[in-house]
């Protein structure tokens, strides 16, 4: 089925187009068409996967040129797809999680009059996401890259009759565009120095390029990745993006789109191979975001924003792993897959809670839901265990590997990155336990008119499947290093280095930190009653509640100067440039006023002037003639 891989992109795209063009007519069947389109991608994806498994490891890169996109010239780009183990991993993740979320949304969005539009956007999103991961060149990848950004914009602003939701959508798109500058710049650099923007040629030319060039490309790619994956310093949009319907947060802002930055870095491995400093920057960005996200997550009371902060932090892990170079690439993608399952599951769980609580998102208003929403509780619990990294749930296998890998190397780096990653595990345990306990345990803190109830099967079944994935996926993929071996054709063979600390010691320390985090959350939020209003808190907590002042900083550094500049420019354009023009015009008119006095209107004086003029001219001509 490999040669049918293009269908993975085409089917959902066609479905989206059909639903959007049908308009009102699609209300009855639009969502089912979308689900069917999404399910088709699963079938084709699995078919292609099975076929790929049957191939030799070295032959597992299926490349097909679909059509000539930009013809001829220096910048000749074909639209082609590249199915290799890396993109295949994404295809499976996106199609499976995407389809589950489609099904969930049928019930979740049941009462929305624009449900079919919502499904068209979801289809548009998965089509763009598939294009992103299947593209065989940076330019085509960019099409998918912007496509997912567009779908994200449309879905965050799905309820944009609320002004602040529309603002959130704009913020997401615009911050992403800042990242896109990086990708365009990277392509310009590749075109100038590597001679091509398609993977095969660019990667082949990369070893011959200078370190400076590769570092510049690497940093530009990192900028792009930061925008898409909400990494420091372009992280501020993700929290606001929770304005979108919860299935959107689960699919786009947790499981798939936000991880595209990690994909970009791993895909660009051959470029980063010649740019150790760019790679170091990737790791540093990952480490900073990891801690930042965790700190923000510890203070948020909005369940979706807490999960968003967690997503930021977990992607920080992936970036950190990717920044470690080939040794970490496989683990970054591994964590990406397991995270896709457990985080999507938890988001759907949060959606289920909101569904039962009249769209309440404040966790201080939850509590004691474990008994009332059993399915949600159990599935969320499995996700919680997975993200904590408790063996044998899937997060353990992927995150532990990242922590171990972070300790590999020499000099100061393994200590800084390793300890950060380890500390992050403790923080993760604390904030996720806080979230879990505040929602499902403790006293009931609901408002009077709320009657929590379990969601319909259509919602809980996808949650169960994702929870099952959260539980066993890690174990399955980690067995005998199956996943690392699967990705080896892309990431390359790596000589396994030894961590600076012994592996069992790292594992033990990590688990101790996790246990401490859980215990702290337990004592704070289960043993003691949770206040309904935010208690007074330390400076750090206050800062974390305000997202560590990221909006304030952006406002002071970018937005405010930008607005002032715009105003000055508008004024200057009217006053200075147009003013100068008008001054010239009125000056000319004034000159005309003076000159018109000479025009008496008397015919005979005109005639006299003409005669004199002709005589003078003649005199000149005659004189000049000699």
């Amino acid at each position, binding site marked *: 089925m490999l040669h049918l891989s293009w269908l993975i992109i085409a089917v959902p795209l066609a479905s989206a187009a059909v639903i959007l063009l049908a308009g009102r007519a699609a209300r009855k069947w639009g969502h089912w068409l979308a689900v069917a389109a999404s399910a088709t991608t699963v079938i084709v994806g699995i078919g292609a996967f099975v076929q790929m498994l049957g191939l030799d490891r070295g032959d597992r890169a299926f490349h097909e040129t679909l059509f000539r996109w930009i013809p001829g010239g220096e910048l000749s780009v074909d639209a082609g797809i590249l199915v290799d183990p890396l993109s295949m991993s994404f295809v499976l993740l996106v199609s499976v999680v995407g389809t589950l979320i489609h099904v969930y949304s049928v019930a979740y969005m049941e009462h929305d009059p624009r449900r079919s539009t919502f499904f068209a956007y979801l289809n548009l999103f998965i089509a763009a996401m598939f294009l992103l991961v299947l593209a065989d060149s940076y330019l085509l990848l960019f099409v998918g890259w912007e496509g997912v950004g567009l779908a994200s914009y449309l879905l965050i602003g799905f309820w944009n009759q609320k002004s602040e939701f529309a603002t959130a959508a704009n913020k997401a798109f615009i911050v992403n565009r800042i990242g896109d500058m990086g990708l365009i710049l990277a392509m310009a650099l590749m075109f100038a120095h590597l001679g091509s923007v398609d993977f095969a040629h660019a990667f082949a030319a990369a070893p011959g390029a200078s370190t400076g060039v590769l570092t510049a490309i690497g940093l530009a790619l990192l900028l792009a990745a930061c925008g898409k994956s909400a990494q420091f310093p372009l992280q501020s949009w993700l929290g606001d993006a929770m304005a979108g319907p919860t299935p959107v947060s689960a699919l786009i802002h947790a499981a798939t789109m936000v991880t595209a930055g990690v994909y970009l870095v791993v895909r660009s491995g051959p470029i980063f191979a010649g740019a150790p400093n760019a790679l170091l920057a990737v790791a540093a960005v990952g480490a900073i975001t990891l801690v930042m996200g965790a700190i923000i997550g510890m203070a948020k009371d909005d369940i979706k924003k807490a999960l968003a902060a967690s997503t930021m932090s977990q992607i920080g892990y992936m970036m950190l792993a990717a920044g470690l170079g080939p040794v970490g690439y496989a683990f970054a993608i591994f964590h990406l897959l397991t995270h896709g399952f457990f985080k999507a599951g938890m988001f759907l769980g949060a959606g289920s809670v909101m569904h039962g609580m009249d769209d309440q998102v404040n966790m201080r208003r939850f509590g004691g839901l474990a008994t009332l929403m059993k399915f949600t509780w159990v599935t969320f619990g499995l996700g919680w265990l997975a993200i904590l990294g408790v063996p044998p749930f899937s997060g353990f296998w992927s995150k532990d590997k990242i922590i171990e890998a972070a300790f590999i190397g020499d000099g100061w780096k393994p200590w800084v990155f390793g300890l950060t990653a380890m500390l992050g595990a403790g923080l993760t345990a604390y904030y996720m336990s806080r979230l879990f306990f505040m929602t499902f345990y403790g006293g009931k803190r609901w408002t009077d008119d709320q009657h929590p109830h379990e969601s319909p099967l259509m919602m809980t079944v996808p949650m169960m499947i994702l929870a099952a994935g959260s539980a066993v996926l890690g174990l399955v993929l980690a067995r005998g290093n199956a996943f690392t071996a699967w990705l080896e054709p892309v990431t390359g063979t790596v000589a396994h280095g030894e961590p600076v600390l012994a592996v069992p010691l790292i594992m033990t320390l990590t688990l101790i930190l996790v246990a401490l985090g859980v215990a702290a959350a337990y004592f704070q939020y289960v043993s003691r009653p949770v206040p309904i209003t935010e208690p007074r808190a330390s400076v750090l907590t206050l800062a974390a509640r305000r997202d560590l002042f990221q909006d304030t900083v952006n406002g002071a550094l970018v937005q405010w100067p930008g607005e002032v500049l715009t105003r000055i420019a508008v004024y200057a354009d009217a006053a200075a440039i147009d003013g100068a023009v008008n001054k010239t015009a009125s000056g000319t008119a004034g000159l005309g006023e003076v000159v018109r006095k*000479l*025009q*008496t*209107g008397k*015919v*005979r004086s005109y*005639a*006299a002037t003409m*005669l004199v003029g002709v005589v003078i001219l003649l005199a000149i001509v005659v004189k000049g003639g000699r």
Partner: protein
Amino acid sequence: MNPMNYVILATVLFSVGATAVLLRRNAIIAFMGIELMLNASNLLLVTFARVNGAIAGQVDAFAVLVVAAAEVVVGLAIIIALSRSRQNISLDEPSEMKG
């Protein structure tokens, strides 16, 4: 044939015409002055055509004649219209052309 005679005659005619245009207020007289100047130049055209043995000058003279005829038609019409509306044909009166 001495072309100089014709040149002098043309000069005299032209000067007379120009003087009439410049000094007389009566539009009809001024108009006749213009005609004189045109014909002075016609005379020169024909003269030099003869001197050079080329036909072009005579053709041009015909063109000038035609233009002059047309001009007379328009000019007289204007004068008549003026005299109708203003009861006189003094050239100094109308100054609507004033800028």
